[in-house]
């Protein structure tokens, strides 16, 4: 009968399978066996059913499908003999789990077996139930299990106790029924029953508040006494491990005491003595003793405060931490993590040791230690700790670098005391582990750099240096490329040198070289290459001497198979080749990116940045200039509108940062301020900061004409469009107020009914702009300004563009100009109509900042100025 004695076929099958030399051979044997078993199942063979099932279990363990044997399990369970039932239950546990519906069919058999007169069969049923019962079975069979908790044989009682744990995990509302019988188990002397009873009580406390209260009231003292007896028990060979009687029971008891003592002072008080005894008396030279100490420390940390005990516990952890055994150090780190909420000071004392653990060879220890260091960092120790971590980054394992980098970045961001330190640390991280740095991290680096105007030069030079040695770190390359594009001139001219820096000599062509390398490097991905192209465009304007070379590099990508690069290349090439006059405007420095807004965006709440500026409402199609595709141009600096922290589509509100420029210091000459085109002039920067948003047909500029630097002024968007050459005679109803002594220089126009005098708004050696004013009847807020541009030089101006901007309380609409070519010597003029709406009419007077770009003898000329001499009352 016994299917497993030697010579029977299970053994033969295992031998045959083991003898197979190849996987294919093994599959052949298994296939044959499975076929035979299926045949036997079909014939309803009773004699060999349990042997067949045993074979199936072996086959299952090898990883072959055996579902066809499931019903055989049920049949075996239903048979009468113990050996059949045993194999049946074993098969049930191996081949099925609680989710299979077949399992429902076994409930009845289980019920019978739980009530069986043979206690071994009862044991089998309890075991199967404990391992695989479902919620429904738990409900159906809970009364049987409950009854078995009082069974005479301890083997059944302990199995029933563990089975009850499964039941209350599946159906927590059954917990109440088990409270009393579980409490009775705590008085058992039999270790097996006691340990399972303690576990059942622990689970009941988790499942039911009522159970927790009950055990706390009725059992705490008893448990303390049980633990005391156990600790002081004489040598018991049956349970002895390393000189300790049943460490497992120790640990379970300590765990239950922890649950009972947590949040209850009386219960905590009650167990203080025994915890102190366990903590001081337990031998710590063997694993078993340390396991008890570890559990004891956990309990001391969790129960209500007792200063003395906690000192004891922290000391134990300190000893653990210096242990040579890695396992002990691991659990010490684990527990210090919990101890930090209790006594951060004590944990800080072990900082040096913990830091050493971060560098351990064992990944498990490193991981724990790193997490611990992470919570240990504060404002006062961030610098040395970060230094240690970054130093370690250089030598750490590849698979640890990701974790480590993320933690360092997070720490540096959180505790950085100053921007230069932040930039330094991030550059180190980018250089060491740039490939592990997440996108939002390197975006943040760029945002911080733009927000530190005094560090622009420092950052770009540091990045340039870093790139020499770490060109394989993708994110470093990106940040460097971006910064060199923006601040290339500072790199070459050593602008903004800090005392701590060594001067470096970088020529313009060196800077272009490094971008070219980034562009062509085989590891650079699309984002990096696209960024490199834009950087080149920017450099072509910053370094006119390299313009030709850059053009050649850009042209090479005209044939790129990557659409994005191809498109960029063509667009950029067109900007470089055909649109000299606006290129410098297009590629001006990015405005300072708003740190707060960017962080908000990172945290998911993206503010609506469209603002109130009528961006596209008044776009006019220019007819004088060949119109390049405007949309892609808007797009073109915007490959990563999600990735690059450049607010790109309409950055109205994003640019508050640039408005903080002091204007009150500017000289006020008779109402007109104009400045020559000077690259470092703050006004110029102001005028064209939103480069990525500009397009040919809608040149939107941000500028600021606030006169009081204390009042932050919002940027406005101004549109200007060149239109046909036709010259419109100035027939505007120019205004003159004879009583107004202000506009003495204005050309006087003798029209009837004028309300306001005309003014010369702007005059330079080359150009004069006159403004005529009129009002729409019934709308005093809106002023119609007719601007007349007159060429004072002997040369013809081409590509003439007038731009204007006003503070927030004004609204400005520009109509198309009458032309974009201005003949020499004031022969003819261009006119353009502006409509200004003053929302503060009567309180504030008009003010405007203007910029005029044109080509004289094929040379780009840019003139700027501010108009303050508007007649009063507009």
């Amino acid at each position: 009968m016994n299917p497993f004695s030697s010579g029977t076929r299970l053994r033969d099958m295992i031998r045959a399978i083991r003898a197979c030399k190849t996987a294919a051979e093994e599959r052949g044997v298994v296939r044959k066996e499975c076929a035979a078993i299926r045949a036997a199942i079909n014939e309803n063979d009773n004699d060999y059913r349990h042997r067949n099932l045993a074979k199936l279990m072996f086959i299952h363990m090898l990883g072959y499908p055996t579902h066809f044997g499931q019903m055989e399990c049920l049949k075996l369970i239903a048979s009468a003999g113990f050996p059949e039932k045993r194999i049946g239950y074993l098969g049930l546990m191996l081949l099925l789990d609680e989710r299979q519906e077949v399992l429902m069919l076994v409930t009845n058999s289980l019920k019978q077996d739980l009530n069986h007169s043979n206690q071994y069969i009862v044991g089998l049923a309890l075991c199967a139930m404990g391992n695989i019962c479902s919620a429904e079975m738990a409900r159906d069979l809970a009364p049987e299990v409950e009854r078995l908790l009082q069974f005479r044989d301890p083997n059944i009682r302990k199995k029933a106790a563990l089975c009850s744990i499964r039941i209350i995990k599946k159906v927590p509302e059954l917990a109440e029924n088990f409270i009393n019988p579980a409490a009775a188990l705590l008085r058992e002397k039999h270790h097996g029953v006691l340990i399972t009873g303690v576990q059942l009580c622990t689970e009941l406390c988790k499942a039911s508040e009522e159970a927790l209260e009950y055990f706390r009231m009725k059992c705490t003292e008893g448990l303390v006494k049980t633990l005391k007896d156990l600790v002081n028990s004489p040598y018991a060979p049956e349970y002895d491990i390393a000189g300790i009687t049943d460490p497992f029971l120790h640990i379970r008891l300590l765990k239950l005491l922890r649950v009972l003592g947590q949040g209850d002072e009386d219960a905590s008080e009650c167990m203080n003595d025994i915890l102190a005894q366990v903590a001081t008396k337990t031998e710590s030279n063997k694993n078993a003793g340390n396991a008890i100490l570890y559990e004891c420390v956990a309990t001391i940390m969790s129960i209500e405060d007792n200063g003395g005990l906690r000192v004891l516990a922290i000391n134990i952890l300190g000893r653990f931490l210096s242990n040579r055994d890695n396992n002990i150090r691991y659990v010490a780190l684990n527990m210090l993590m919990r101890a930090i909420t209790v006594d951060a000071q004590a944990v800080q004392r072990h900082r040096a040791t913990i830091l050493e653990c971060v560098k351990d060879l064992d990944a498990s220890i490193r991981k724990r230690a790193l997490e611990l260091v992470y919570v240990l960092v504060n404002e006062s120790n961030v610098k040395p700790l970060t230094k240690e971590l970054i130093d370690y980054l250089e030598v750490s394992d590849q698979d640890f670098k990701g974790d480590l980098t993320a933690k360092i970045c997070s720490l540096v961001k959180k505790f950085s005391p100053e921007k230069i330190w932040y930039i330094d640390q991030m550059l180190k991280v980018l250089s060491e582990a740039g490939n592990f740095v997440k996108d939002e991290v390197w975006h943040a680096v760029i945002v911080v750099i733009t927000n530190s105007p005094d560090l622009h030069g420092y950052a770009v030079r540091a990045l340039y240096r870093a790139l020499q040695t770490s060109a394989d770190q993708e994110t470093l390359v990106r940040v460097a490329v971006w910064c060199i594009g923006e601040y290339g001139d500072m790199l070459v001219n050593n602008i903004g040198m800090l005392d701590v820096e060594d001067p470096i000599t970088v020529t313009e062509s060196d800077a272009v070289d490094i971008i070219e390398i980034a562009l062509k490097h085989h590891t650079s991905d699309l984002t990096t290459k696209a960024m490199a192209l834009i950087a080149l465009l920017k450099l072509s304007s910053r370094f006119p001497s390299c313009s030709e070379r850059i053009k050649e590099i850009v042209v090479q990508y005209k044939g790129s198979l990557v659409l994005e690069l191809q498109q960029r290349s063509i667009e950029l090439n067109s900007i470089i080749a055909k649109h000299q006059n606006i290129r410098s405007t297009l590629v001006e420095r990015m405005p300072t990116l708003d740190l707060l807004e960017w962080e908000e965006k990172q945290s998911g709440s993206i503010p609506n940045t469209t603002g109130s500026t009528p961006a596209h409402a008044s776009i006019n199609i220019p007819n004088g200039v060949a119109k390049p595709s405007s949309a892609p141009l808007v797009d073109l600096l915007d490959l990563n509108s999600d990735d690059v922290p450049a607010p790109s589509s309409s950055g109205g509100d994003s640019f508050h940062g640039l408005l903080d420029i002091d204007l009150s210091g500017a000289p006020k000459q008779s109402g007109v301020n104009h400045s020559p085109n000077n690259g470092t002039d703050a006004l110029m920067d102001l005028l064209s900061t939103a480069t990525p948003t500009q397009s040919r047909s809608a040149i939107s500029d941000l500028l600021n004409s606030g006169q009081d630097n204390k009042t932050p002024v919002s940027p406005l968007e101004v549109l200007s469009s060149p239109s046909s050459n036709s010259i419109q005679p100035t027939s505007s109803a120019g205004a003159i107020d004879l009583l107004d002594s202000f506009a003495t220089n204005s050309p006087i126009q003798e029209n009837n009914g004028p309300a306001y005098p005309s003014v010369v708004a702007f005059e330079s050696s080359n150009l004069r702009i006159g403004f005529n004013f009129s009002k729409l009847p019934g709308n005093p807020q809106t002023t119609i300004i007719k601007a007349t541009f007159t060429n004072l030089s002997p040369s013809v101006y081409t590509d003439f563009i007038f731009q204007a901007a006003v503070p927030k309380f004004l609204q400005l609409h520009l109509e198309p100009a009458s032309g974009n070519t201005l003949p020499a010597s004031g022969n003819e003029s261009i006119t353009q109509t502006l409509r200004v709406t003053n929302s503060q009419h009567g309180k504030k007077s008009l003010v405007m900042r203007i910029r005029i770009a044109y080509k004289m003898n094929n040379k780009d000329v840019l003139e700027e100025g501010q108009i303050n001499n508007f007649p009063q009352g507009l």
Partner: protein
Amino acid sequence: MIRFILLQNRQGKTRLAKYYVPLEDSEKHKVEYEVHRLVVNRDPKFTNFVEFRTHKVIYRRYAGLFFSLCVDITDNELAYLECIHLFVEILDHFFSNVCELDLVFNFHKVYLILDEFILAGELQETSKKAIIERMGELEKLE
């Protein structure tokens, strides 16, 4: 609680797999593969603990066999390490000088011993003697 117990040799052949949580067969194979890869190349001086998904694997190597327990992250690692050793002592006692082949040919007995040692993912009996005696009684019933 214990989520599963695995006995694997160095080549990754599973000699015993006991799951106390329901898993699909395919998932079980994946788990066995991953656990084997986690433990097989670790230096003997390293900790016996590896983090595995959201749990922790406590493993111990005896000759060519790895005994791995997957337990909750808050469980006492040292205790489960001791637990593995106790199980191995029981096997050693039962098979008198256990070797891998004993476990292969008597896999059903190994399951039987395990069911007397651990039930529902919790420790059932801590006395080696009690388990061996119980096994003797069960053997007689065969």
